[in-house]
């Protein structure tokens, strides 16, 4: 290949003009004549029986158009993310967490809607509830469900012979690691605008990641066929997994149906923090054995995830945890367990990383603990165990393309000056300690085997050579539309600026699956390439006829026809006109489903992923040992996305992931007491500001992935994953005291320093694990 003409070029984001001029419309910006304000009523208690719910007074208020309770839902009263569909849209008799909705109201104004909510009379019988995940696992604990145990799932992935593995080990280290409950904090809260159009179609503008799944859910709850529902995504102000599962769009549609008027339902920030799904807090007990040369012989890790009261994505997240818990290493014997546990705490579901950040945190903190026990350099132990192409991992999968692991590790170490770090002053002041830490991760792309994981896309070249790309893939800021447009432009041989992306709009676009699992580049990308292929052939056929040259000699590039690399005075528009003139089709659909050519034995973990991306980050930190305050001086990140489609977008994904990972490491934590969140706003749930970002050194390496479009496999989630463990490892290096919990608040760090023997602060970490 001569070199790409569009791929890898720094094109501007799709629809950037709208964004910088303020014209971009998000759900709260959509205004329709006669539009009503929708709101949901949330409970006073996180666990209670509803004795009485009386909406008559609310209904009677002037200006209140609809008040809905569970019995008013014509179709299914449940979210359909999980099976069984256990989460009601509007509760009937039981409140199981602080974010359960009791009623939905639509009224003429914000005020009136608020007054209606206040006029709804609810009589509760508060119940005991269960709020500690370990207690919830005990026999005799308060059961969240009468007919299901609190331990709703226990996945075990076995590989090799774990007992033999530990017998072989010359060093065994065991620790327990803890991660907190985390908020997505997307800048645009959940929202939707719904109205019935003149054809009787319920049109829903939804700030969502899965428009086609939304359509299914809305239709199911409205009690109408899917083709009478139309879901359109306007601009989406961030999602990070928190808008994968449906939030308020079904309620908005129900209200619009009942009111016969448009309804806009936007959650306030506080409602958003209290009610939508969170990142699972997970406790991971990690035990690993190695021989004296540092090679892992066995890993036994057990993860406990508090999923809240409803299944949602709980089991799926914990599956991902188990499947990746062994890390990007060769582990010949493993037992990887994940418990999904019900409590009455806030519901947990998808969040950028889908369990892998938690798994990686434990795995990488533990790798350093093992390194310390062996008195081995953290880089060395990772090099010794790092995955390579052809190795088998505990899920039974053979790594197709594993070079990225060690390439990223070595590059990151190099960029960070890892080998020279001992020359730098570790004690720049009597009360300051400097430290370095690294973390390597692997990240699975796609949903996994035996799970529907496909996308369709459609391309049309018009008479003037401009291109329309229809995609059902939601772009919530991760740049999917820009990437797909670049892939289309490259594949068709046209300029990027001539491609216009339409969608998602379920009346015009076909299901591309949810924008999750960093999958759109890979899966929608391949769908786009498959759509482009026949169209390109048709254009070349026309070019061949018009130039009287065989089509094998011709190329299309930047909208021009070339013969053997030389530009001709023939462009794609002319070829398009010729094609249409000759009754040839310039439109095609593409479809792609994630491929798993490797067949695994039937007893194997059924959802094992096969595509992985790798990354390593190195953190340099400074700790004030009198206050515990932590300064991150520098962060080096090397990531392997297979192929960089858009450098600007890729940089954004990596930096953004790192900043989110940094927040995870040092400042983010939802504080919940007896099921109630105590810090439900952006002044008390802290995310990084511009001043919290350290010096970042970022490098992207390209190790093309088989089957991926131009080798590009995805970048949305992975960069978030190594940051927290790299920082933790750096802090441990700085203070010489083991740490196992994030966030690393000043108070926690100081507490660890004070709990250790005073002499340990001066010594380098030798016999610590």
């Amino acid at each position: 290949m001569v070199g790409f003409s569009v791929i890898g070029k720094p094109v501007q984001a799709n629809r950037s003009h709208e964004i910088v001029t303020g014209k971009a419309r998000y759900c709260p910006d959509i205004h329709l004549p006669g539009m009503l304000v929708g709101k949901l009523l949330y409970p006073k208690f996180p666990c209670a029986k509803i004795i009485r719910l009386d909406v008559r007074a609310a209904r009677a208020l002037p200006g209140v158009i609809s008040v809905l309770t569970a019995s008013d839902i014509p179709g299914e009263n449940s979210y359909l993310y999980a099976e069984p569909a256990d989460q009601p849209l509007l509760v009937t008799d039981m409140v199981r967490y602080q974010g359960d909705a009791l009623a939905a109201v639509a009224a003429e104004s914000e005020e009136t809607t608020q007054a209606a909510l206040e006029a709804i009379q609810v009589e509760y019988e508060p119940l005991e509830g269960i709020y500690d995940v370990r207690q919830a696992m005990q026999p005799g604990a308060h059961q969240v469900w009468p007919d299901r145990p609190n331990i709703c799932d226990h996945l075990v992935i076995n590989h090799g012979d774990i007992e033999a593995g530990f017998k072989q080990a010359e060093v065994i280290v065991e620790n327990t690691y803890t991660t907190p409950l985390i908020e997505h904090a997307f800048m645009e809260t959940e929202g939707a605008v719904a109205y019935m159009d003149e054809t009787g179609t319920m049109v829903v503008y939804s700030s969502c990641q899965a428009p086609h799944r939304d359509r299914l859910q809305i239709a199911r709850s409205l009690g109408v066929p899917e083709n009478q529902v139309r879901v359109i995504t306007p601009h989406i102000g961030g999602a990070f997994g928190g808008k994968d599962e449906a939030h308020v769009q079904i309620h908005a549609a129900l209200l619009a149906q009942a009111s016969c008027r448009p309804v806009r339902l936007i959650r306030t920030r506080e409602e958003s923090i209290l009610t939508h799904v969170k990142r699972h807090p997970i406790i991971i007990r990690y035990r690993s054995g190695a021989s004296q040369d540092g090679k892992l012989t066995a890993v036994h890790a057990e993860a406990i995830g508090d999923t809240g009261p409803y299944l949602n994505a709980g089991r799926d997240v914990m599956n991902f945890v188990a499947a990746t818990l062994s890390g990007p290493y060769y582990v010949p014997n493993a037992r990887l367990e994940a418990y999904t546990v019900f409590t009455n705490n806030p519901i947990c579901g998808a969040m950028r990383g889908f369990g892998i950040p938690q798994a990686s945190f434990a795995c990488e903190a533990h790798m350093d603990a093992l390194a310390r026990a062996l008195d081995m350099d953290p880089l060395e132990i990772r090099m010794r165990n790092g995955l390579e192409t052809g190795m088998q991992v505990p899920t039974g999968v053979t790594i197709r393309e594993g070079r990225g692991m060690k390439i990223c590790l070595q590059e990151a170490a190099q960029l960070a000056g890892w080998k020279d770090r001992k020359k730098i002053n570790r004690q720049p002041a009597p009360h300051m300690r400097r430290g370095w830490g690294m973390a390597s991760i692997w990240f699975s792309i796609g949903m996994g085997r035996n799970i529907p994981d496909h996308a369709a896309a459609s391309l049309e070249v018009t008479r003037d050579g401009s291109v329309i790309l229809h995609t059902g893939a939601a772009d919530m800021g991760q740049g999917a539309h820009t990437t797909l447009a670049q892939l289309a432009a490259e594949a068709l041989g046209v300029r990027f600026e001539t491609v216009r992306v339409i969608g998602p709009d379920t009346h015009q676009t076909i299901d591309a699956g949810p924008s999750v699992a960093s999958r759109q580049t890979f899966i929608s990308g391949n769908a786009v390439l498959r759509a482009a292929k026949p169209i390109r052939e048709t254009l070349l056929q026309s070019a061949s006829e018009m130039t009287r040259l065989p089509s094998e000699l011709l190329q299309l590039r930047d909208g021009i026809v070339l013969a053997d690399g030389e530009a001709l005075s023939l462009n794609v528009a002319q070829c398009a006109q010729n094609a249409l003139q000759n009754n040839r089709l310039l439109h095609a659909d593409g479809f792609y489903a994630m491929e798993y050519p490797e067949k695994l034995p039937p007893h194997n973990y059924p959802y094992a992923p096969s595509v992985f991306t790798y990354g390593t980050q190195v953190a340099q930190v400074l700790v004030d040992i009198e206050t515990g305050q932590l300064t991150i001086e520098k962060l080096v990140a090397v990531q392997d996305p297979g192929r960089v489609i858009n450098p600007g977008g890729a940089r954004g994904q990596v930096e953004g992931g790192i900043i989110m990972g940094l927040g995870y490491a040092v400042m983010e934590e939802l504080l919940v007491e007896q099921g109630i969140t105590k810090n439900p706003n952006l002044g008390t749930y802290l995310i990084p500001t511009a001043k919290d970002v350290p010096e970042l050194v970022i490098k992207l390496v390209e190790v093309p992935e088989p089957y991926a479009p131009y080798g590009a496999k995805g970048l949305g989630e992975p960069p978030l994953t190594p940051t927290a463990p790299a920082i933790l490892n750096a802090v441990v290096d700085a203070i010489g005291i083991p740490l196992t919990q994030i966030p690393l608040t000043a108070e926690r760090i100081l507490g660890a320093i004070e709990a250790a023997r005073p002499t340990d602060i001066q010594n380098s970490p030798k016999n610590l694990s």
Partner: protein
Amino acid sequence: MFHCNYLATESLEEMLTCLHEHSGEARVIAGGTDLIPQMRCGKLSPGLLLDPLRLQLNQATQSEQYIRLGASFTHSQVLSSALLQRELPVLVSACQQVGGPPVRNRGTLAGNLANASPAADAALPLLVYNAQLEVASQVGERLVPLNQFYTGPGQTCLAHDEFIHHIRVPRVSPNSKAVYLKLGKRQAMAIAVASVAVRLTFNDSNQVVQARIALGSVAPTPRRAYAAEALLQLRRPDLSLIRLAAQAAQQAANPISDLRASDDYRSKMVLVLTQRALEMLCKDRYPVYSNGRD
């Protein structure tokens, strides 16, 4: 959302009359950065908001004896005031650490004080600068020393019909040095977990003739550590005296545990921050004094 009436009074008289007539129902709104969020969540619901913006109390002036800041003087104005950079540098340093620029552009010092949060950044430098509040009511004027202003968390000694129109600070001796140290949970937009302001005035024999130590976020109100200050009086502080004073400051604190930190951590931080502040201020004075810090 909230409902109330609003009036931008044309004169100080009108302000005082309205405050008196609507006693208890009316509140002064300046930048609104504290007031509006509290009204939104229902914590406060005044029937009438009185805005002093037309009173033109947005200047900083100096006389021989005092520096006066008008009630509407914002945190941003503090930052860009050459007068204050020269005369009250630690007030400038503290205001730099309030919120972010949009909050500083609207939030006023007087409003920050009247909101009476124990975490108020501006309160500590003003306390160590011996600030006084010029308070007016229909009855007349009174001067309230800032260290007598706070009566409890969110509470001040102001009556409902009183209005702070100026903050005044006595001119600061050139032999005085001060520092403000704040611990927060992130680098901007962070409410203090613990903070201290310390000011020492020295005589020609290098003795401390006035020590002022103010503590933030570690008690129901911003407060002075009087016992600690007394320990330093007329002494040339060495490391062990500094330590004693810091311990006394720790005793003066009465922190609680909340979302941001535990009482135990806060208490420890009073000791650390006070010690550091004193060391920073004493370092240059005593050539033989070495604290081993850069």
